[in-house]
């Protein structure tokens, strides 16, 4: 009845196998009814020993089954000389197969679980347990260049969907037994493996306990991406700012681990999470620590300024031109006025229209098939940029303001950290459209107080600037050479 929502509900989870192969086969076949990809293979060894192999087609390495398991059993029989083995059942019991990982389970529930994870199950007549050999092999994407976190300098590797590939990348970078990888299975239906990676001795134990208990409390049907985990364990869902750093780069995760943070890797997701995150992490690029410190310092300042620009420019423009034109230099004010002589909409509405169009273009650009990509840019540039201005529907300064602010939000190295900047622009627009600079100031105060209030996993979001950590605050604004930074 609930067969679709709960796996093997018809079977009691604790039901044990019986010594009779026929009974076991029947039960398992009932469990895997209408599962065309689950293969049952009967093997009879030397006329009398009956074996049953069960596996999921496409998830196991057939070569290994044939060469390591089937061939020796069928042609050479039970290996002799290592002591008396009477039956295949006994052989199963002693796990005498040339496969690395084998285990034995006694319940149907466990057996079915492992079969679905790509193990080969071997049942023998007369044996009330299942031997599971890990011969899983499935198609996986190979390691590619990071696509959303490109860097000029630094590794070209990025995580893949395969969890073990990802953990191996971390292991290759951090060579110490202190690098721990705690594993959890989350999701009733997906049983997704989630790994908490951290370096023992560096990570704060209380924070780790907190994360561990939060992960253990997750109650989800399925986990398809690390975003599920992020949403389930973050401190507050009601914040425009991301509280976990997400990265597809093993070097970024490793550097996080070495700073005493916890990495969360999720099977099936090439994006790892790093907790806790601070505001400044969102504005740092992966190659900040690879490039010469002077260039990086300059780039950081450019990013900080542009981040501020991205969030403030349209609303300050509205406030200045419509509320406080005395603050704009006279010549600039006159040319702005000259350009919007024929504008039919108030400035606020103009900015709103253009902001919506810009966000629409951005959203369209992400999901468009590559062949249609240029179309959007042509339509965007020509229709919205040029034609709207020439037709006198939108004034030219607005196009400049909105596109400048839009571009500045893309200067932020972490793409998802640009979202809060773009999103918060809208409430600020409303505020400054109603109250002028006063509204802008109120909006910024609200944003700042939210940022100060935010402390994911006990780490203040604006640290080390607020609260000020004197020794570290320098590193936010300057990237000092490493060996010198350590001394001072």
């Amino acid at each position, binding site marked *: 009845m609930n067969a679709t929502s709960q796996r093997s509900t018809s079977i009691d989870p604790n039901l044990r196998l019986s010594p009779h192969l026929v009974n076991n086969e029947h039960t398992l076949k009932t469990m895997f009814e209408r599962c065309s990809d689950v293969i049952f293979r009967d093997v009879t060894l030397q006329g009398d020993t009956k074996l049953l192999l069960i596996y999921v087609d496409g998830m196991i390495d057939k070569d290994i089954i044939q060469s390591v398991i089937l061939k020796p059993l069928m042609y050479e029989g039970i290996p002799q000389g290592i002591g008396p083995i009477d039956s295949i059942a006994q052989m199963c019991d002693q796990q005498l197969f040339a496969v690395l990982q084998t285990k034995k389970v006694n319940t149907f529930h466990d057996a079915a679980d492992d079969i679905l994870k790509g193990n080969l199950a071997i049942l023998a007549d007369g044996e009330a347990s299942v031997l599971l050999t890990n011969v899983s092999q499935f198609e996986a994407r190979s390691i590619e260049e990071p696509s959303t976190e490109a860097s000029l300098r630094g590794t070209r590797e990025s995580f893949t969907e395969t969890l073990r590939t990802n953990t191996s990348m971390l292991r290759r970078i951090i060579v110490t037994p202190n690098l721990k990888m705690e594993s959890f299975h989350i999701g009733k239906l997906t049983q997704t493996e989630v790994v908490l990676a951290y370096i023992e001795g560096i990570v704060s134990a209380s924070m780790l306990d907190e994360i561990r208990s939060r992960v253990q409390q997750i109650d989800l049907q399925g986990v398809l991406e690390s975003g599920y985990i992020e949403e389930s364990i973050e401190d507050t869902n009601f914040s425009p700012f991301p509280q976990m750093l997400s990265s597809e780069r093993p070097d970024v995760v490793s550097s996080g681990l070495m700073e005493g943070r916890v990495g969360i890797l999720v099977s099936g997701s090439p994006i790892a999470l790093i907790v806790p995150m601070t505001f400044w992490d969102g504005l740092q690029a992966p190659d900040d620590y690879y490039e010469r410190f002077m260039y990086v310092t300059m780039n950081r300042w450019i990013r900080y300024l542009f981040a501020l620009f991205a969030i403030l420019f349209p609303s300050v423009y509205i406030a200045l031109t419509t509320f406080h034109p*005395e603050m704009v230099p006279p010549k600039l004010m006159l040319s702005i*006025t000259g350009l919007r002589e024929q504008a039919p909409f108030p400035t606020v509405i103009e900015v709103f229209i253009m902001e919506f169009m810009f966000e629409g273009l951005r959203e369209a650009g992400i999901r468009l098939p590559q062949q249609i990509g240029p179309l959007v840019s042509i339509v965007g540039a020509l229709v919205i940029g040029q034609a709207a201005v020439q037709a006198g529907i939108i004034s030219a300064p607005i196009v400049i303001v909105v596109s400048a602010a839009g571009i500045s939000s893309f200067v932020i190295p972490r793409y998802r950290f640009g979202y809060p900047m773009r999103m918060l622009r809208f409430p600020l627009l409303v505020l400054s459209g109603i109250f002028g600079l006063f509204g802008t100031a109120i909006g910024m105060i609200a944003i700042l107080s939210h940022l100060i209030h935010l402390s994911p996993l006990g780490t203040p979001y604006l640290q080390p600037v607020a609260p000020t950590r004197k020794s570290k605050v320098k590193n936010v604004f300057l990237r000092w050479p490493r060996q010198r930074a350590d001394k001072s």
Partner: protein
Amino acid sequence: MKKILLIFCLMLLSASSTGCWNLKEPNQRAFIIGVGIDMTEDKELEISSEIAVPAGLGSSQVTGAGKKNTFTVVSAKGKDFMDAGQHMQAELSRSLFYAHRQTILIGQHMAEEGVDRYLDMVVRNPKSEIRSVVLVVKGGTAKEVIKAEPTFDPFISTTLGSQQNALGMKPYYFRMLLCDAYSEGTQPIVPAITADPARGYVYTGSAILNKDHGLKLVGFLDPEESMYDNWMMGKQKKLTFTTQIGKENKMISLAVQSLKHRTHIKMVKNKPQIYISLHGTGSIVENNSPLDPSKDDDLKTIQTRLSQEAEEKVRKLVDKAQHQYKIDIFGIGEHVHRQHPEVWKTLKPHWHETFPELPITVSVHLRYRDPGQTNSSL
């Protein structure tokens, strides 16, 4: 959530109570970029405002129709500044906006009557710019100057400050007029221009206003006198001296870059003695005389001759101020106030009578730093 809502409501209320509700699109405003204050024959105040017409500026692609003028001048009479503003507003479809006023021109007639009773608005009105350049129109009305079309800029109002800059002066802003008018002993020296039908608007020195008599016009200084006066007041950044030298009356010019001034007050038997020393260093930019600046003797001759000539002119200016205008245009009273505050208290009430009798010693030291690319002339 309730808390957030409450905070938001409070913010809305506080915002509306501050009266910050003055949204006005730029194209609903008439930007006044210059203003002229005149007094008509019937002793009535006449304000002329130069108003920018943004459609005529730059953005040619927006306007399909023929090119418009860049500005328009609107004049109105009134009881005071803002009353005249009301009358001007009657002619305009956009509301007057005073915060971008670049220039305040005062007609000579107005200056003679005393202008201070009409200038309160400039300071009091929060929307009014106090960084406007102030000028007195010599021998004419502000109205005719403000209508002039300058060579480079679209508006005359924006050019007058840059003109003063180009002449090596610090532009004379309204706030400097305020400082001078509220100071202890300085009398405001306001730059003057003349509307010349052939040459446009020409800088013609400065006007002396008497702050003790309602900023009434006392007289004018010619451009050279103004230059020395500005030097003494620290308002001159650079200047070029040209003097005759030798028997054949050949000319030599020195472009002076770093101008320094020092006024020292010495009290002798409770009477102040004034020592003004002016220093300047520069480079010889033109030399038509047979003298060779690379020779020590010739150089000394040049420097002495230049200094002497300048000293002579400053002395004449001091004499003019002491005996013709009888007004302290050098800010000496201010120096006495600063250097000997205890004496100033007794001197201040009759400074007008004291000033013409003061012994003023002037010394000018001009030095060269760079003889130029060649030695003697061809």
